[in-house]
């Protein structure tokens, strides 16, 4: 649960910072809106992919050339 909340707040912060730069209007514009949607989608996809690669690399490190000096 804690991890989920951390991810959630990271997501909000990152997508806000990357997408919302124009404060001439109070409403979130259509462009900003689609940017945020894309940002969130892409973030999840990237996390998924990174998680898979991370597991693979971690497993390879554990059984393969893991820490020569023990």
């Amino acid at each position, binding site marked *: 649960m804690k*991890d989920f909340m*951390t991810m959630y707040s*990271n997501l909000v912060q*990152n997508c806000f910072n*990357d*997408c919302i730069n124009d404060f001439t209007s109070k409403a979130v514009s259509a462009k900003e809106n*689609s*940017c*945020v*949607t*894309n*940002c*969130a*989608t*892409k*973030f999840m*996809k*990237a*996390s998924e*992919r*990174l*998680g898979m*690669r*991370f597991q693979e*690399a*971690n497993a390879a*490190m554990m059984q393969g050339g893991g*820490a*020569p*000096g023990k």
Partner: protein
Amino acid sequence: MSFLGFGSRPQPTSAQKIAAAEQELEMVTDMFNRLTESCRKKCLPTDYREGELNKGESVCLDRCVGKFFEVNMKISEFMQSQQQNAMAGGGSGRIGGFGA
């Protein structure tokens, strides 16, 4: 026969094992979070014209994970050699090594 009287061998208790496993899990989670942040910053452009990962971004992420691990190993080896140097050269007398 036991030289240490009642002490016997220090077998890690199950509580200690659990604590070690928890610590390791925390380390791995922390590493993963740092990796995610770095690779996302380096591989994903911030204009978000589409929600899908394109080919270039995917390849970049894959390579990023590999390189992150490699750097991790390199630094770990470097720190170990530093520690060994400090132990070998630091004091004139030989002090029982920690960990090693």
